[in-house]
């Protein structure tokens, strides 16, 4: 009996988190019902920016209501099975399209905790050169590296940023590092938001060990315990306005298929949009908030995948998701290189062919190293509303980005061969693989071809960027709309330009910085009224 009790207790702390003040929209808002709520601040979205902002606003004594379109999936419900996990945790099961040349897939979270539940956990500060650009060239006040430092410190405390324990590194990590060092490239340790990570590599499908310190296990339960409220399955349609100020939001309860249930309205003094760089501009457009920059300047941080096939067994599914990155080419070429092992079902789509030929390649799954180059894109896309009033994204990579992608792919191919690969599979439909380092110049020789490049992204940003003047962007330097100051933005859409690195920490730091200002403004408004 004693032994049984001891075994029962042997679960991570994250399996026992309490989530008070949570209501399921499908339970409280069946079809035909309209629910109305009041709050000081309504936060739309519970991801990196939404949760951080909600926490800060609650700490400032405001009555905060968080609205989340997805469901609350607890840590103990996460499984190492990508297909049902993608259906439960991702918007569109991870298959949202970005139209353009070439078209690409975009994946983002749709659950409590947002994309922090399904990202790789990379926690990089915004590079100093980017902050200096925002501060000096774009004229955004209090954005320089020194002023931002305490917010990054605070973000890292919330996220519990640490380096990966070396015991948890897989053979794929060692091979990646080995290849880079042979070429004399500097390899950077990846700061990640993990606590005692054991290297399961299920980050993209919800971490069942609870090691990843996503908003689901950090700021959301903390804010709820402090008195914030959370309403799940609540999709916001538009902001309600009166006399040039927002008075709240209106929306509908929806389930995982997007089926519509009851309606809701929230009346609030402050509306914080943190629905992501795709849905935040859509909500603003549907609310008839006019600024010609809403939805424009979209950056996608595109990612091209390259596979190396080795003679030695790697078992890429064993070991931490990503412990190292190469930033050697980031400042000069705008290319960041990293590896990430993905489950066979997802890797299969990146390998051309079908039937027997495909099976012959996939039999080598345990001998494959998958790496990608992320491009600091210079081109700009846009988010518009389709005939169904849902957001559609368009992004054409420009000729400089095409060149960056080819350079990045060539660098990875070089790394793979240096690490001992016998074949490298490329992300080009018409030039699928190379078998020798002598073929690398052929990659650069085709650098102006873009139609057959296979790209995907998980980092879209800047679609409602912060700018000093309303003529340059819809939000001011504190994330508030120039045209409606009690509407604020706390997600990646407010980022002024491409950050070049994984944006989670930038989003959290900016949300913390801006939320302080919003809370202060509400306090001042109250004092004036008294």
């Amino acid at each position, binding site marked *: 009996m004693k032994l049984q009790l001891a075994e029962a207790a042997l679960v*991570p702390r994250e399996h026992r988190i309490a989530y008070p*003040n949570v*209501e399921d929209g499908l339970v409280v808002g*069946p*079809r*035909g*019902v*309209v*629910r109305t*709520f009041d709050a000081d601040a309504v936060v739309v979205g519970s991801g990196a920016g939404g949760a951080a902002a909600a926490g800060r606003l609650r700490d400032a004594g405001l009555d905060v209501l968080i609205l989340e379109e997805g469901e609350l999936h607890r840590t103990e419900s996460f499984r*190492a*099975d990508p*297909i049902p996990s993608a*259906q439960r945790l991702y918007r*569109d*099961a991870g*298959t949202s*399209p970005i139209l353009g040349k070439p078209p690409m897939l975009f994946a983002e979270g749709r659950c409590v905790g947002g994309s922090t539940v399904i990202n790789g956990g990379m*926690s990089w*500060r*915004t590079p*100093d050169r980017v902050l200096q650009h925002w501060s000096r060239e774009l004229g955004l006040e209090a954005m320089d590296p020194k002023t931002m430092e305490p917010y*990054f410190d605070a973000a*890292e405390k919330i996220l519990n*940023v640490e*380096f*990966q*324990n070396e015991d948890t590194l897989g053979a794929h990590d060692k091979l990646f590092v080995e290849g880079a060092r042979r070429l004399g490239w500097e390899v950077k340790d990846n*700061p*990640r938001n993990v606590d*005692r*990570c*054991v*290297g399961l590599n299920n980050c993209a499908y919800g971490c*069942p*060990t*609870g090691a990843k310190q996503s908003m689901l296990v950090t700021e959301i339960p903390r804010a709820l315990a402090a008195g914030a*409220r959370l309403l799940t399955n609540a999709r916001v349609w538009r902001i309600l306005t009166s006399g040039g100020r927002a008075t709240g939001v209106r929306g509908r309860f929806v389930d*995982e298929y997007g*089926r519509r*249930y009851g*309606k809701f309205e929230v009346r609030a003094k402050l509306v914080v949009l943190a629905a992501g760089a795709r849905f935040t501009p859509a909500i603003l457009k549907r609310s008839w908030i006019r600024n010609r920059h809403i939805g424009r300047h979209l950056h996608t941080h595109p990612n091209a995948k390259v596979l190396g096939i080795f003679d030695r067994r790697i078992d890429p*599914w064993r070991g931490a998701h990503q412990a190292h990155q190469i930033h050697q080419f*980031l400042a000069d070429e705008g290319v960041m290189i990293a590896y990430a092992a993905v*489950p*066979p*079902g997802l890797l*299969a*789509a990146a390998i051309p062919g*079908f*039937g027997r030929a*495909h*099976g*012959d390649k*996939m*039999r080598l*799954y*345990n001998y494959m190293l998958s790496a990608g180059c992320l491009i600091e894109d210079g081109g700009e896309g846009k988010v518009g509303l389709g005939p*169904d009033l*849902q957001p559609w994204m368009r992004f054409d990579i420009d000729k400089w980005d095409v060149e960056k992608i080819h350079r990045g792919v060539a660098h990875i191919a070089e790394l793979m061969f240096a690490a001992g690969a016998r074949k490298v599979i490329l992300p080009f439909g018409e030039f699928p693989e190379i078998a020798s380092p002598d073929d690398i110049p052929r990659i650069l020789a085709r650098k102006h071809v873009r139609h057959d490049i296979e790209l995907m992204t998980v980092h879209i940003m800047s679609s409602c960027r912060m700018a000093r003047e309303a003529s340059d962007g819809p939000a001011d330097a504190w994330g508030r709309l120039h045209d409606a100051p009690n509407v604020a933005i706390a997600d990646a859409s407010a980022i002024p330009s491409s950050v070049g690195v994984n944006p989670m920490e930038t989003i959290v730091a900016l949300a913390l910085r801006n939320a302080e200002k919003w809370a202060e403004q509400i306090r001042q408004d109250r004092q004036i009224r008294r």
Partner: protein
Amino acid sequence: MWIAKALPNRLRAPVSTVPPPLPFHYTEATRNILRAAIAVLRPHGGDFEKDVDEAVLRGVLSFVPHMPPFARYGFPVGLWLIELAPLLYGNGFVRMSRLDPLARERYLGRWERAPGPFRMLFEGMRALTLMCFYQQPEILAVLEIDWQARADELVERRARLQRMAPELANPRNVGKIARGGS
């Protein structure tokens, strides 16, 4: 709970606790087209020769309703296009699902090289089939992968690590937290 404090509801339509219908229904004819495509697209030979086609079919059909609306509605339309298009590719008045397996493989191979949206349609079907195929437990066993067993083991391991001080659980944490400078 706090919701009880919300203002009284205004009822605009009859309240119904019955969920709305699923966003998609597939006819048996549509399923047969997909079945025929899966039989060719799925890897064959050696250890991969497992009886998983029906599980792959169920996997694909359960995935599609989660996809964006245009894909959700475009998928069955696309399947019928593939079914009826052999005529365009010079195979005469015959449906794809009635071609013999070798001819069907050659026919789908031509879709792989088709231009623009036709290729995307084929790519979507190929990706869904392969994704569902390689995540079948029997196929994962062939690839010697047992991610879930490893997950169960590591959940327990982490629970043990949580009983240790952070610097003992990860020696790289001694006296510092990582700073994400670049």
